[in-house]
């Protein structure tokens, strides 16, 4: 199922979820659980914890779906926020030492490993066109909940450089996808 993008009208799905429709949840889970699990797994780096958190995340999505505002952006962006906040909250409360000892080197290496395991499907090929450094930045800042300042500190890079590179990484990614 990995890498499959859902094909449906987001408005309809949200409407069904708000009516607590079982079919809608099935659809949501089948289409989004892999992507969200992939993110959480990268942030917490423990399968057991990631599974607990994924449960929490889907329950939160289900309970708070009435707060999602279609006009403010994509459903996935909203769910990504929930996933990101839930994972970061967990790390702050339960394993503060991880945040302390976590080095950028570990992050980069960790990602390198995941990269080696990737299939060569089209999406992944596109993503691999980004420089590894850009990928690290995207994952730290967009998924890992790092602020620009934290990322700059961990990567020993000037703040301005981090800001510019984070933005340009996403911009490049956008270009790859639209070309």
């Amino acid at each position: 199922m990995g890498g499959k993008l859902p094909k449906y009208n987001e408005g309809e799905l949200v409407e069904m979820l708000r009516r607590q429709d079982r079919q809608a949840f099935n659809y949501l889970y089948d289409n989004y659980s892999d992507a969200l699990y992939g993110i959480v797994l990268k942030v917490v780096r423990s399968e057991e914890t990631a599974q607990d958190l994924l449960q929490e995340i889907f329950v939160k999505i289900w309970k708070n779906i009435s707060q999602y505002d279609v006009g403010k952006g994509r459903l996935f962006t909203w769910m990504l926020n929930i996933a990101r906040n839930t994972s970061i909250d967990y790390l702050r409360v339960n394993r503060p030492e991880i945040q302390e000892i976590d080095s950028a080197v570990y992050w980069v290496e960790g990602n390198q490993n995941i990269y080696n395991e990737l299939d060569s499907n089209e999406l992944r090929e596109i993503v691999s066109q980004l420089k590894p450094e850009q990928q690290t930045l995207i994952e730290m800042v967009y998924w890992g909940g790092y602020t620009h300042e934290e990322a700059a500190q961990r990567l020993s890079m000037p703040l301005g450089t981090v800001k510019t590179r984070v933005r340009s990484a996403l911009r490049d990614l956008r270009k790859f996808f639209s070309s």
Partner: protein
Amino acid sequence: MINIKEYIESGVLEDYLSGNVSEQERREVECLSKIYPEIKAELEQLSEAVERYAFAHSVSPPASLKEKIMAQLEFKEEEVQEEVSIEDETPVLPLNSRNNSFQWGWVAAASVAALIGSVVYFNAKVDTLSQTVAKQQTELQQQTQQLQQQTDLLAGLSSVDNQFVTLKGVDKSPSSAVRVVWNAKTQEVQLNVLSLPTPASDKQYQLWALVGGKPVDLGVFDVTGSLQKMKAIPQADAFAVTLERKGGSPVPTLSELYVMGKVTS
């Protein structure tokens, strides 16, 4: 007017998506992306890129997890069961075992029941009729009032310098609509509520002008059918209405945005 291209290139949209923005910037992005389709499109494409990136890194969780999650959720099932239960409660009468005289008694009882039924029916009918009359009287009063309001409206609208901006309902309240009449010469702003939900007694709607991306307070108003005079403004890119506490707020509460409309230049 804000420079849309510059705004998009400033990087604030990327920062918004990663959560690296201040509260003020966040509201600005959400507000501007509602007004300017170019900004909305850019934000949409950037979010899509993040989304695809996430999908490219999908990992399947164990299959058992789905059931674990679903066990924690409450679903509303289709209400088929209720009908079935009504049928179940219908008493089943034995078909044989009763003699003729009992059946005549049954018929008599049924006739009495029918008579009572028709009296109740006619009483109800009379009630309905008097309700209809009362309703029509109220409607007539309302229509007279509306006619007066329309006449006033026409009188207030007759300047050639007037520009009409229809503020349409956003997601929160799609059927809402407000019309703003803006006189570019006198800078006067008048407002006419076409449709807005009645607010709670401690709340009031507030009109805002968006000038160069910044909201400017144009005063609070009540939900009436008449034309209401608001604060004057020399320049505006768009108008918007939010629901605020009674008396208004210094900054708009964007989660309470009801209608919005762009000024066509």
